């Protein structure tokens, strides 16, 4: 293991982790307003297939990204309708979203099975910053979406902390009864943030096919990445800045087999290496619970509870 391998591994971790950053950020946005979202996998898949098909048809990256964004938002609208208006069990609603979303993705993906995508996002070296030794290679030779993800994370963090709308949103997630009495429109806030979150998740799926996994494969495009994002939301204590750290950690695990091969460690069966990200996520979750028994990890107090006015 020399410095070169480590640097490349770190750079690869940032790249692989970026879909997670976007997806977890999207999930977090809705959950801070009180709506649990375990349907991230479905929203990512539908964003991915929308972007893929758009890319094949138009060969335009912006359009493909937009398609992914809109697809994710549309599915999130369904989730909002079930969770906020129909007061359904939000966990089961998320599962329905996953099943439905993956069904739609498989349905439309059949026509492009095995194809390679027509356009790809290429890396963009930030002038000056890219030449910094080590750090430059890791951080500033990524593609535009990576840079955008940082900006988005910071914007969301600022939004939560320093704006009146962010305060209103947080109050909905903590105590919808209080927010309602103070004149805040609880349902509207939850819809907006869940759908906006869905847009980010769809964008994550779009980015995945445009930059990370360039072939459409019925079985393996997201392969559970959406579920790792769900875990990441918990792992980050619902805080945008922590999402980034966790995402890159998982990004490292995702690239484990390449990293290990480059380091000269071969002959671990491919299946075992593929298990690593999932096992790592489970281990991290369990460790986290072990160290945090009282606090419920800072979840918004009213997370997952449908709000009925006048029924406390």
């Amino acid at each position, binding site marked *: 293991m020399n410095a070169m391998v480590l640097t490349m591994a770190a750079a690869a971790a940032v790249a692989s982790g970026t879909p997670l950053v976007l997806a977890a950020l999207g999930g977090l946005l809705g959950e801070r307003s009180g709506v649990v979202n375990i349907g991230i996998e479905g929203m990512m898949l539908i964003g991915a297939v929308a972007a893929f098909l758009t890319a094949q048809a138009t060969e335009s990256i912006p359009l493909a990204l937009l398609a992914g964004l809109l697809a994710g938002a549309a599915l999130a609208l369904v989730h909002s309708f079930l969770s906020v208006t129909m007061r359904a069990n939000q966990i089961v609603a998320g599962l329905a979203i996953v099943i439905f979303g993956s069904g739609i993705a498989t349905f439309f993906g059949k026509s492009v099975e095995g194809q390679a995508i027509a356009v790809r996002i290429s890396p963009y070296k930030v002038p000056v910053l890219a030449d910094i030794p080590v750090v430059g290679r890791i951080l500033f030779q990524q593609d535009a979406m990576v840079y955008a993800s940082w900006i988005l994370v910071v914007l969301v963090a600022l939004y939560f902390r320093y704006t009146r709308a962010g*305060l209103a949103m947080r*109050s909905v997630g903590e*105590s919808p009864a209080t927010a309602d009495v103070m*004149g805040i429109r609880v349902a509207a806030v939850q819809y907006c943030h869940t759908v906006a979150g869905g847009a980010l998740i769809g964008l994550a799926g779009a980015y995945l096919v445009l930059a990370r996994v360039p072939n459409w494969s019925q079985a393996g495009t997201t392969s559970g990445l959406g579920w790792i994002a769900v875990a990441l939301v918990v792992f980050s204590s619902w805080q945008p800045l922590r999402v980034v750290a966790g995402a890159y950690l998982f990004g490292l695990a995702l690239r484990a087999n390449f990293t290990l091969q480059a380091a000269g460690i071969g002959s671990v069966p491919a299946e075992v290496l593929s298990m690593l990200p999932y096992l790592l996520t489970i281990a991290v979750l369990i460790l986290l619970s072990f160290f945090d028994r009282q606090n419920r990890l800072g979840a918004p107090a009213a997370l997952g509870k449908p709000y009925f006015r006048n029924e406390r």
Partner: protein
Amino acid sequence: MASRPAGGERGRAGASGALLAEARNVSKAFTGVLANDRVDFELRAGEIHALLGENGAGKSTLASILTGLYSADSGEIRVAGQPVSFRSPRDALARGVGIIHQHFHLVDRFTVAENIVLGDTRQGFFMSPAGIRRAVADLGDRYGLEIAPDATVAELSLGERQRVEIVKMLVREVDVLFLDEPTAVLAPGEVEALFATLRRMADDGKAIALVTHKLNEVFSICDRATVMRGGKVVAAAAIKDFTPETIARAMVGRDVDLKPRPSTRPPGAVVLAARGLGMEAGHHCGLHGVDLEIRAGEIVGIAGVAGNGQLQLAEVLAGLQQPDAGKVTVNGTDVTGKGPHAARNAGLAYVPEDRLGTGLASGLSIADNLMLTSDTGFLFDRGGSRKKAAAAIGEYRVKASGPEEVVRRLSGGNVQKILLARELGNKASVFVVASPARGLDVAGIEFVRNLLQDYRDRGAAILLISEDLDEVRLLSDRIVVMHAGHITHQCAAADYDEAAIGLAISGYSGGGRFADTR
């Protein structure tokens, strides 16, 4: 924003202040129940007005209509002489009419400043902490409210949280403020501070309405009173035109028997004994050296404001919590820390204050709930549970559609009847009962009190925990006072000393036997 009435006349003149809010011929019905029946109500600038009535009289409904939560079925609401139709509490607030509910509407995780600013549309896109701090400090000076803008609400006491709610209303420039049962959660000293604040607000031209059922406080601070009963207004006049007896009779509609019914026999053997109970303070004040003895055929009443260790004491006795020190003996058996089954098998029954969250599984049927504390074998006897439920419904005259009805659908009084039916029917000899009559209407309160006294007369030992000092005094043979996890006073009912007990509730050791006070 709509125009606001100018500040009215000052002082206790009451009748001469400008009319800030009124209800004219207002009626409101909920599925079959006429909660407000052609009600007239007037609120003037500069007055503190008591809106009195027992639970179920309709006073909270009227307040909710006047503050925008409900809309009246018929009649008219006016603010400063102008007819209004509120579509939400926010509308009412925009016209200067606000309410502070019994359960505060605060976000625990936010700071005081964030709670005050929440939903205030006059703030810009980005919030300004300095501006809030200044506004809060100004208001605090003006009305004598001590308040720390950067404290997290979760850390505040209930009295301090109430102050935050008041500042929240003042910042929004309310002219009319309703307070729903504001003193229920306060210690005696805090009640005085609240009344001082309210007085200053009234002197400043605002109109204050206190929705309450506590008579003694009404006489100490209010200028006028309106009494409701069964949805109608039965009396409305200046306080000086009332006496406690006339108000009480107006509230209840008949002469209420306020005399205690003491036990006719001397108490028997000790059946429940707690020695040296101790528990470390954490989110609660803990327990410190609590010694308690209850004998067969007596009611021992624990008085004190909620949150002074009563819940912890009850749960330790019932086996739900383990004490850090001390011993609990029920009918001679040591049940300390052995769990609820041990206490129950030794003959103890526990009627908790939190009926729907602890004593009952609110989403399950009456039949299931009656079996909650029974020891069943591997098989669950469904037929038996239904028979039991039918019997209980008949015996206690519960208004329910049958054994399968979900408990959550029952009204407050009927919920309590189910809980009592189960615990009193379990062949226990010791009963720990917390706030048994809270939230019930007059008939329900009388029912519960008579029931407890009947059981006492038949030889049961009852530990009554209640924040209502009058209730404790009425029912108990012996009175114990708790403060901050200590027992600060003990005496026989016959030796009741109002002053000493008041001091003991606030934490000063009074007459009778002493215990550690700090």
